[in-house]
């Protein structure tokens, strides 16, 4: 099991009072799986993922268990956490433009994790990056590495960010609304890239999205999150017929149906 979250509780302090945001979340992701975490805005999807990587500081209180590739994240020391972030997991955020440092060239931004964190030489890092950029479908990667983020389109930047995530050979990818900022066609392409990488490398991936139909079309398993708890777990292909929780049914009914992809 790549990631196992058991009874995760998270509370923030607001005006001196602790406010619980996650009320005992349970989920797991195994190697070779594309798992979806679906819910409305504010349901706690992003919070869960960030908590898993311990990206919250002292302002959040965590309880429960988060195991990533065998390492318990809650209560782990800074070095252990950094190790997991460096070796096991990669995070893909929603807005690629916000995820990259605007004052640095793309090549430098991507190379940083390889040279600083993994101790590679710059040449080796750049070679790997160019190779990866090509494999995610970016043209002229040797030229792209010298460009700044504002020179690329949103779709291309998203591919760049995916390439960045893959560059450290993680076992688990956490994609936080990674396709929400893209148009439908690009969305489909990006998901295809994800699925291919999962197959080829045996990765596990948690895809966070508010788009139920997208999840239904692509994921092997779906967790439905509502107000900080998992209310339903669904396995393909019975999404629409097997969903029993009234909340899930509401999501299905209110989600805009774009293409008949659920059947696909």
């Amino acid at each position, binding site marked *: 099991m790549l990631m196992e979250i058991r009874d995760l509780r998270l509370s923030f302090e607001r005006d001196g009072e602790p406010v619980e945001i996650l009320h005992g979340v349970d989920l797991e992701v195994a190697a070779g799986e594309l798992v979806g975490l679906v819910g409305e805005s504010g349901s706690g999807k992003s919070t869960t993922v960030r908590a898993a990587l311990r990206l919250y500081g002292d302002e959040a209180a965590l309880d429960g268990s988060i195991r990533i590739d065998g390492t318990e994240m809650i209560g782990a020391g800074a070095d252990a956490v950094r190790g997991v972030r460096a*070796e096991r997991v990669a995070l893909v*955020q929603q807005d690629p433009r916000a*995820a990259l440092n605007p004052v640095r060239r793309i090549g430098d931004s991507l190379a940083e994790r390889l040279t600083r964190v993994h101790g590679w030489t710059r040449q080796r890092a750049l070679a790997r990056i160019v190779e990866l950029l090509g494999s995610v479908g970016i043209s002229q990667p040797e030229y792209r590495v010298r460009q700044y983020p504002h020179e690329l389109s949103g779709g291309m930047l998203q591919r760049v960010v995916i390439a960045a995530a893959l560059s450290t050979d993680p076992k688990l990818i956490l994609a936080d609304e990674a396709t929400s900022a893209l148009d439908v066609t690009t969305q489909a392409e990006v998901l295809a890239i994800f699925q291919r990488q999962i197959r080829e490398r045996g990765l596990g991936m948690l895809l966070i999205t508010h788009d139920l139909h997208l999840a239904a079309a692509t994921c092997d398993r779906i967790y439905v999150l509502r107000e900080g708890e998992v209310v339903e777990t669904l396995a393909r292909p019975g999404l629409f017929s097997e969903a029993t929780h009234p909340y899930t049914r509401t999501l299905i009914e209110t989600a805009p149906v774009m293409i008949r992809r659920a059947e696909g």
Partner: protein
Amino acid sequence: MIRVIRRLGGMLLTLVIASFVIFSAMYAAPGDPMTFLIGSTEDVTPERIAAVRAQYHLDEPLLGQYWHWASGVLAGDFGESFKYHQPVSMILASRTPVTLALVAYAAVLLCIFGIGLGIIAAVRRRRAADTVIVGGTTLAGSIPEFVLGIALVAVFAVQLQWFPVAGAGSGGLERLHALTLPAITLSLASLATISRVTRQAMVEQFDSEHVEAARATGLRERYIVRDHVLRGAWGPIITMFALVTASMIAGTVAVETVFGISGIGSLLVEAINTHDFPLVQAVMLFMVVAYMLVTTIVDVALPFLDPRIAEQAVSS
């Protein structure tokens, strides 16, 4: 490029208008300019009247007078001081170095403590140090400079006798020593602004997604601060620092008076007290030009310093 030229053109126009205001202010005075310039009634002699008329070309129309003065200024001639009977440019030249030394000293202090405290407050945000720094600097900024200066003199010069009570010392280490309390006074008022801007810029970076992305790759915190947070933050910081330093030029008027320093700040006060209008005009012009120069340079350089502004400029 066009932007730069437009900015410079705007600055020049404003400068010309401001200098005109400075020059023609004497016409705003009650009575006629001659009466105003002569000022005290003690030495109203025919020779005096003739001298003043000649220096200011009062026979000519206003624009002509302004032209004489402005062209003189551009050539380095600010006329003659009524009180000292010496070329104003000489007086300026002799007193400017002290003021520059004072402002430079204050700028260094501001850099070290203002930015330093801001960084500490940002790194330790939402904790005790942050509150103390923000509260403390705001408090210091609420005290008028002259009050602060006198308080410092009372405690550190008179009571503890660590520093001289007044004056700027004569050169070298002695000057540095004598200018310490004045420099502290001058910089303390702006400490709040700089540390706040620094803290703000850094916190913005800390909370930004690209810093989070970097952290998620397992990068050590110190590299995150150095390569991501500071990198993005130093633009706004430097901008504000330049602006604040420029406005310290005007702050020297009060500080030099408190500490009895013979720079151009106190020169302005003296000149007003002695009705020495050529001197007043010259000092004002000098300060205005210096201030405009710095603010325009900052304005022009802004896109290079602050990446967000650069992005807007590129995409527009």
